[in-house]
């Protein structure tokens, strides 16, 4: 059986027509995107900005320049809030770890107590924790327990649960089942199966994740004060309210220093574990 060769003329025409229609399609998509972008630009920048109050180039430059006159006299007052920020991050991470234990257990398909109730519950809690911003969590807890570091710690902990428990649950789902089988075969109970069969396999992943999360939580703790939950953010907020732009810059520098320290510590800690 021979296959009829398509006339080259016909094949070429069809190819060209197809290419042309594709090109028109692409242009339509680009034009649509450009229109959308123009509308966004118009609505947010042209329409929403208070052009009258902006002042000239000198006015803008002058304000920015005031940020660069760092107010070093504030430095001694930064030490305690900086430490508080660090402690909030650390305690929040620790509390988050403990809260993550049951969530990871529920949300790992191979160890969950019930596929129909606890598994969806665990997955829901993971999403809930991550979908609410840390500032929103902080506002919630400031409302509940008042001002200070405690609501900040609670907010950081709640926000940490999602990431830690999700990574842990995934590590549990990816374990090698063979050691688990062996511990069951010697007559180990549920706890022993987890502690001897599963934990050693997931430990490096978990510790790496916790260090990573602690690193992120330093950043989160630094802004908790914006809503009254202690730490450097509170100072930032006060300097801003007093229009002390030099002080604001110093607080930002302090946050930067803190995060840099966190970065270095977590780098070496992770290396030590893995």
């Amino acid at each position: 059986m021979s296959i009829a060769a398509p006339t080259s003329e016909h094949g070429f025409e069809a190819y060209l027509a197809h290419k042309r229609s594709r090109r028109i399609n692409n242009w339509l998509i680009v034009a649509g995107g450009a229109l959308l972008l123009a509308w966004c630009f118009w609505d947010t920048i042209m329409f929403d900005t208070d052009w009258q109050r902006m002042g000239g180039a000198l006015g803008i430059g002058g304000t920015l320049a005031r940020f660069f006159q760092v107010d070093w006299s504030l430095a001694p007052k930064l030490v305690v809030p900086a430490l508080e920020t660090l402690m909030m991050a650390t305690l929040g991470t620790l509390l988050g770890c403990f809260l993550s234990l049951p969530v990871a257990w529920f949300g790992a398909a191979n160890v969950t107590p019930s596929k129909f109730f606890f598994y969806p519950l665990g997955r829901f809690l993971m999403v809930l924790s991550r979908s609410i911003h840390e500032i929103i969590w902080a506002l919630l807890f400031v409302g509940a327990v008042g001002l200070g570091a405690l609501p900040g710690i609670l907010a950081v902990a709640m926000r940490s649960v999602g990431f830690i428990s999700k990574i842990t649950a995934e590590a549990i789902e990816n374990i090698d089942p063979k050691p688990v089988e062996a511990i069951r075969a010697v007559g180990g109970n549920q706890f022993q199966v987890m502690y001897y069969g599963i934990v050693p396999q997931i430990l490096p992943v978990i510790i790496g994740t916790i260090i990573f999360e602690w690193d992120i939580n330093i950043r989160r703790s630094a802004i908790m004060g914006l809503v009254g939950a202690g730490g450097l953010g509170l100072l930032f907020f006060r300097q801003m309210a007093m229009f002390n732009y030099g002080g604001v810059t110093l607080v930002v520098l302090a946050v930067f220093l803190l995060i840099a320290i966190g970065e270095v510590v977590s780098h070496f800690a992770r290396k030590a574990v893995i």
Partner: protein
Amino acid sequence: MAILEVRNLKVSYTASGPQILKGLDFDVDGDDFCAVIGPSGAGKSTLIRCINRLVEPSEGDITLFGQSVRALGAGDLRRLRRRIGMIFQEFNLVNRMSVMDNVLSGRLGYTGPVRSFFKAFPREDIDRALHLLERVGLSDHVDKRADALSGGQRQRVGIARALMQKPEILLLDEPTSALDPKISRDVMGLIRELAAEFKVPVLCNIHDVQLALETCNRIIGMQDGYKKFDGPAQGMRKQDLDEIYAMEVL
């Protein structure tokens, strides 16, 4: 007297799925070193795992040490499993734990929650573990991590772990399949020697027919979920083997 009695054992993994074991009957006596041979897919691993219920049988009866295995609740099943030593094809060690902790984990069935948590095993368990590690020739590797050992050495850790339980029967699931021929013979020889020393009956899946005939005193031949042969190793003829492995030729 039979230590293990299996009657009309049937297994399918899912209700609608294919039947893996299609009605098996056999006994294991107190002094048996019994090999289960047969082509891949005959159901050998499933059979071994039914006896300590790592796999749930669908039909039939298993009686071990006079207890009906299928009737046991979770707690009684754990107490029964303590008395059954198991050695695995891929060793099933916890790679990130030390050799010593892997061997000691054989005692977990007898260890309380606090001791388990701190990995603080009683003195006599530690002495026994050290003694067994010496017996299997691993005295120099006690504190090494399990994944630092070679295949043959890992299986020796597996043997020590099983013997740690003071087992009254040993279940072996292809203990030599992951090893080279020379090490396979060493490992089987060691298991036979230790089984005789501790007077433990053995039920052993094995792929290597020659090794089975050399090591075991009794052979059960399986094919496609049925028992095709059951008798002393010496009585095994060429045509029996041909019949067991007939499926593979086709």
